[in-house]
């Protein structure tokens, strides 16, 4: 395959996932300029190692590289706050938290359906990166646990427990919002 063939093939296959890559990077970095840098780095890496792609789910492969690029970027440029941290509880993937323990009251259930997009975005942005990540991949990219596990490089059990915690934390923040 000539250089041009390789480039064309890569662009035809990878560029359709550019929005997904940018969306993930944008939610992880929290701002457009850094998201662009992370995505560009990721795409260049993906192009360089395109032969390493085994023909599976290309979106998963690309988003995993976006994630790695984000981790590198966060280490180089930002405080540790932005970097993913391994939770001690992650190790025991099977020990799922029992969601939330408070009883559901009807007005609360309704509040969960009333936030506008911008307030929602602020809430998501306030979550820690590993929670933000699973929620974005699950709800915006519609990925299965298996796909999310492949992107994040963790066992499926960890995806389950992270999602459960992410939802519990989001719910807590959500209900703490002042009613409009």
């Amino acid at each position, binding site marked *: 395959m000539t250089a041009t063939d390789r*480039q*064309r093939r890569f*662009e035809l296959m990878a560029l359709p996932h550019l*929005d997904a890559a940018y969306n993930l990077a944008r939610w992880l970095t929290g701002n457009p300029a850094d998201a*662009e840098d992370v995505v560009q780095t990721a795409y260049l890496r993906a192009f360089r190692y395109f032969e390493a792609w085994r023909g599976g789910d290309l979106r998963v492969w690309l988003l995993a590289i976006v994630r790695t690029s984000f981790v590198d970027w966060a280490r180089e440029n930002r405080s540790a706050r932005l970097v993913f941290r391994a939770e001690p509880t992650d190790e025991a993937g099977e020990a799922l938290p029992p969601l939330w323990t408070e009883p559901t009251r009807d007005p609360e259930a309704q509040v969960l359906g009333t936030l506008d997009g911008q307030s929602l975005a602020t809430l998501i942005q306030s979550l820690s990166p590993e929670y933000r990540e699973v929620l974005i991949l699950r*709800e*915006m990219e519609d990925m299965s646990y298996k796909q999310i596990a492949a992107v994040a490089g963790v066992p499926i059990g960890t995806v389950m427990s992270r999602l459960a915690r992410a939802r519990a934390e989001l719910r807590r923040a959500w209900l703490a919002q002042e009613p409009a």
Partner: protein
Amino acid sequence: MMPQSACDLTRRDLGRLADDEVGPVRRLLLSRHLRRCAACAARYEEILTMRRTLRERLPAHRAPPALAARIGAAIAAEARPAPIPSPSRRLFPTLLGPLGGGAVGALAGVALTLLVLGGSGAGDRLTEDVLASHLRSLMGDHLTDVPTSDRHTVKPWLSARLDVSPPVHDFAAEGFPLVGGRLDYLDGHPAAAVVYRSDRHVINLFAWRADPNDPATPRARQLQGFNVICWRADGTGYCAVSDVERDTLERFVKLVDRPG
């Protein structure tokens, strides 16, 4: 009342149930419990509401139009260490054409959703290259180097920079207004790209000095939702590409290729 442990076990799995990540047997047991336990059912309803709200309202960030161009340039620089032996269109400062950046971004979105992944065995090298250039022109902010519907500006601009002098007409009366011109690089050689519009769709018409291997008779291909028609006339090779209907693109090609 259900024993506490049954509710605990159920609640642990409600997220997986909402995510459709439980096996059929577990699903059956969970559904049975939810029918009998109002507290667990309310919790499940909460998760569903939360999921629905996130899916419907969380704003998706779209890649800015210039990002694809930047990535394309970075990849090209890596793939071809030797400089391209033609004036790269990225060297030319570009003003936004009659199509605003927003419109181009929207078009790129349409184009992207039409792209279907998978083996593109149907496409030959030229067709794939034409489509790739078309997509790049939609996604970057480099749709045109000379953004004008004045053919007396576009034609000399292209002729001065290329070894071909492509026909440039404003087919506004026929439904294909001229948008502008651009230098591009196609299948290993510099090419003129004359940009037209058909309603909200963009048509790229590529022209280059013909190779004897280019087909002399019109040849239509469909690739990933886009129509590509290539032909040769008077020593010049042409390809028209767009996501308009095949009939519309053929009508456009006949206008371009009409004798005289």
